[in-house]
């Protein structure tokens, strides 16, 4: 049986298990597994399901917090947002499927994360996506971007869940191995939150949703737990196909079943299909489960029991139903035209038993399946130097640095992508994608119950420069985005996208990054409520940049005063607030110059936590009309991004900042007073590492350097003193006013000016023009 998939010879190695792991299985079973059992073990003990290289490390993350309702281990985490309401959220990767078949890979990535959310009883209300591709001038990257965006839109738009935000970076290490991480938020009354633990011996196990076919067989082990390489085309049949219409019905049906209190537990079928869903439910409930493969409705008639057990057909859910409620469940399902089939029962003991009609074709102890997988200690070793080659230089000395940054695809406007997503369905979206630093959603439609804000971030290149600081910065960046709209963090979810953890330098990246995340979470008193790990993101050319993606959810009392992130009009005062210490290391301008730093300046997490509280007080006061944290491209890009949307110019005098916050810390040399300042600085900055900080590189660091802690706030002139009073405990510099049609940045010995329209053309055209 099953020779087509398993093949001859050492089946377990073909299925991704090591000889040691196979011996462990035999020892714990007391015999050799049969083909059904081997297929089940190979998935449950895969990296994707078993977290065998990351589980120990993940224990370092703080998972307790005052607002936590559901923590790691459930289908999604959930936090209390007041008024008896909960927000459930989670981020998950679908990297390898998207690298092989971008449209369906991305679409089913969205479908999968939606199911995690409604599996806990929450109605999905928002999706965000974090995407990474190779450089946009590569045809493969454009193809992947185009199809991934189309796939996300196809699924999210059709299923009626708003896509409210996200981010896209373009870096060559993602050329072969793109990243597609999708995050979903759902809302639920506390009492509807549902756990997945199976309960009640004798209860029915009911499969809901789509027919089971051969799609995605072995996806978790074949795709998600090995490096990409030649022959990926042949893996295309391992990618699942999504049906958002089926999912839409499934969402409405499951929520109605939960509202009517008809289910004892609910679980989605994700990676490894029935195998993982049934064993997880049994494990959490400390019970056994019998499943009859002959009862599973099939799309193809001749499927083997092992294929049915491991199929990754989409849009399916598994629930536990008390016998007397079964008819009521079927009635609701029939109304929604959702297939519902009793395929098994909850049993005493702790066995997962697989039947094919009357024949017992597999029997495994649940605890061995779920918790018996060997957990490996990482063997981290700090590499002697950077493991990545510096990116190709993209600007010359004569180029206008600000324009080059605005045109750089990782910074440039992503409206091209956002316009392909429905940001509005559900009538909750107060701040749409790119309108504010974080998306803002009403909790209740009467507007009286506050709102939640959500942001997703993770700059892999900075993590490559310094895994600890880069990962901590991802948390700070999310919190900064939230602070800009007045939201206080309640919890976060993360997706750890890394290379092969069996390699010492990748293990080192992973360890450092988890420590950085953990320390930043503690400093902000924000727990990790759940997440996902995606390892083995490597191509023959090497690993991806280590990319911990952080999704953070916070609450704000009054969405009506949540600042947008651009200047709405002339005559506003612009201030720089916060402990901003910009440095060129790890910055976008450094990348454009073809350099990659080894190490980033340390971050003082406690001072950032204090700053965030002050910024939050400011943005909640109603005085701030626009707020923007300083991130990629530094102060110069942040000011331009604020000027571009409404074409409102700004004049900023940065002279008072030149001594105290640049990385050089020295005075500006008199001879750099060239009128074409950006070019002059470009010429000098190359020499900085060899010859020490030059005056021009100090200026460039001030203008385009990066680092957490800087915020640009705009307010009416008459409110400037009140705003200064709120910000009394943090650095606060009034740098200019909005007005005119130019962006002007005045330094002591030079000034930079750019027409807003010219900046806008560079910023807005960069991505769409690459598809023309």
């Amino acid at each position, binding site marked *: 049986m099953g020779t087509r998939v398993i093949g001859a010879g050492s089946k377990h190695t073909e299925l991704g298990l090591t000889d040691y792991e196979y011996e462990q299985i035999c020892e714990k079973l007391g015999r050799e597994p049969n083909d059904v059992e081997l297929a089940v073990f190979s998935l449950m003990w895969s990296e994707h399901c078993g977290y065998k290289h990351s589980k120990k490390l993940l224990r370092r993350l703080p998972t307790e917090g005052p607002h936590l309702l559901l923590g790691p281990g459930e289908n999604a985490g959930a936090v209390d947002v007041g008024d008896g309401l909960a927000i459930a959220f989670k981020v998950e990767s679908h990297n390898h499927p998207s690298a092989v078949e971008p449209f369906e890979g991305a679409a089913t990535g969205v479908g999968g994360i939606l199911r995690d959310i409604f599996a806990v009883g929450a109605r999905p209300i928002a999706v965000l996506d974090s995407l990474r591709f190779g450089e946009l001038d590569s045809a493969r990257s454009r193809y992947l971007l185009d199809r991934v965006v189309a796939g996300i839109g196809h699924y999210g*738009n059709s299923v*009626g869940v708003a896509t409210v935000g996200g981010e896209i970076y373009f870096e060559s290490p993602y050329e072969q191995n793109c990243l597609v991480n999708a995050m979903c938020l759902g809302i639920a009354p506390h009492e509807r939150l549902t756990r997945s633990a199976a309960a009640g011996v004798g209860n029915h196990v009911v499969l809901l949703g789509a027919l089971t076919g051969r799609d995605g067989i072995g996806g978790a082990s074949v795709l998600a737990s090995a490096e990409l390489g030649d022959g990926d085309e042949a893996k295309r049949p391992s990618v699942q196909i999504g049906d958002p219409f089926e999912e839409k019905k499934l969402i409405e049906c499951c929520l109605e079943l939960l509202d009517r209190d008809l289910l004892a537990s609910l679980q989605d079928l994700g990676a490894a299909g029935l195998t993982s869903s049934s064993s997880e439910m049994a494990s959490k409930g400390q019970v056994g489960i019998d499943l009859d493969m002959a009862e599973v409705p099939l799309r193809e008639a001749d499927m083997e029991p092992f294929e049915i057990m491991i199929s990754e057909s989409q849009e399916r859910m598994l629930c536990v139903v008390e016998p007397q409620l079964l008819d009521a469940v079927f009635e609701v399902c029939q109304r929604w035209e959702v297939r519902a089939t009793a395929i098994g029962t909850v049993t005493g003991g702790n066995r997962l038993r697989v039947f094919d009609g009357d024949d017992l074709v597999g029997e495994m102890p649940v605890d061995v399946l779920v918790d018996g997988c060997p957990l490996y200690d990482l063997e981290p070793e700090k590499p002697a130097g950077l493991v990545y080659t510096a990116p190709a230089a993209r600007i010359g000395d004569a180029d206008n640095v600000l324009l080059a940054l605005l045109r750089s695809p990782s910074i440039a406007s992503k409206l091209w992508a956002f316009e392909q997503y*429905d940001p509005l369905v559900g009538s909750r979206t107060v701040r749409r994608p790119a309108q504010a630093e974080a998306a803002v959603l009403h909790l209740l439609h009467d507007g009286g119950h506050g709102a939640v804000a959500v942001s997703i971030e993770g700059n892999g290149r900075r993590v490559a420069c310094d895994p600890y600081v880069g990962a901590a910065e991802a948390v700070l960046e999310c919190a900064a985005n939230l602070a800009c709209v007045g939201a206080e963090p309640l919890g976060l979810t993360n997706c750890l996208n890394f290379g092969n953890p069996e390699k010492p330098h990748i293990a080192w990246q992973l360890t450092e990054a988890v420590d950085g995340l953990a320390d930043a979470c503690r400093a902000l008193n924000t727990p990790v409520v759940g997440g996902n790990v995606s390892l083995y993101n490597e191509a023959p050319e090497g690993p991806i940049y280590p990319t911990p993606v952080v999704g953070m959810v916070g609450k704000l009392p009054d969405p009506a005063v949540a600042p947008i992130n651009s200047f709405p009009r002339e005559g506003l005062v612009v201030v720089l607030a916060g402990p901003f210490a910009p440095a060129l290391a790890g910055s976008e301008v450094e990348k454009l110059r073809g350099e990659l730093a080894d190490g980033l300046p340390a971050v003082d997490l406690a001072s950032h936590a204090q700053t965030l509280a002050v910024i939050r007080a400011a943005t909640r006061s109603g005085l701030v009309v626009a707020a923007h944290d300083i991130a990629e491209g530094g102060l110069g890009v942040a000011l331009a991004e604020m000027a571009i949307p409404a074409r409102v110019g700004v004049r900023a005098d940065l002279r008072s900042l030149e001594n105290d916050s640049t990385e050089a810390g020295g005075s500006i040399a008199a001879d750099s007073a060239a009128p074409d300042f950006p070019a002059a600085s470009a010429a000098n900055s190359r020499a900085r590492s060899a010859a020490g900080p030059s005056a021009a590189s100090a200026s460039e660091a001030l203008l385009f350097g990066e680092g957490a802690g800087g915020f640009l706030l705009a307010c009416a002139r008459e409110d400037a003193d009140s705003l200064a009073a709120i910000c009394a405990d943090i650095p606060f510099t009034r740098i200019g006013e909005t007005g005119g049609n130019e962006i002007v940045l005045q330094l002591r010995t030079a000034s930079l000016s750019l027409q807003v329209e010219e900046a806008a053309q560079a910023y807005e055209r960069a991505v769409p023009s690459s598809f023309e």
Partner: protein
Amino acid sequence: MTRFGVIRFPGSCDEVDALLAARRFGEAELLWHRDRDLKGVDAVVVPGGFSYGDYLRVGAIARFSPVMEAVAEFAADGGPVLGICNGFQVLCEAHLLPGALLPNTSLRFIARQVEIEVVNAATPFTRACEEATQLSIPVKHTTGRYYHPHPDSLADQVVFRYAPGQNPNGSLADIAGVANEAGNVVGLMPHPEHAVDPLVGSADGGKLFESMAWVPA
């Protein structure tokens, strides 16, 4: 008080949004696709979304649903029927409205806030507007390019046009919404139900619901 009925097909996405919008101006309830009973409502909204998945031509399945038989009778009796986005597509498929909706010229889904002009302020859906008023209302669709073989023949049946430079999808003559000959059935691609609250972007779409709820003295 006007009672709105909002149809819910499997795959409808914006039906609750339309329900909430209608409730700002009257009473409103959902109508199930399998029911032929419109429960005595005063006005019907056929909402946006992807009815029955729209895997065939958009709206092609929904027009055969039991509830649409009742809607056709309701329309024939002069009852006001508003089709939004997918609802517009369904009403065209059902031949309750002239013309058809084709894929956007970009062949992509487009979500964008657009300005539309009220061309005919004499319908039950626009009577709260001044003629030539511009409304800020979002569009979000893949198949919104309005087509009619003889657009000039529509005359007063054109109710909304995209403002100059705002046509997002290549619609013929910038047509954003049309009425039937009697004027009691109107469909449009923009989503007025997503423009009823300044906090979420605009309240201009409320004018359509206000018009429908308006009981002439």
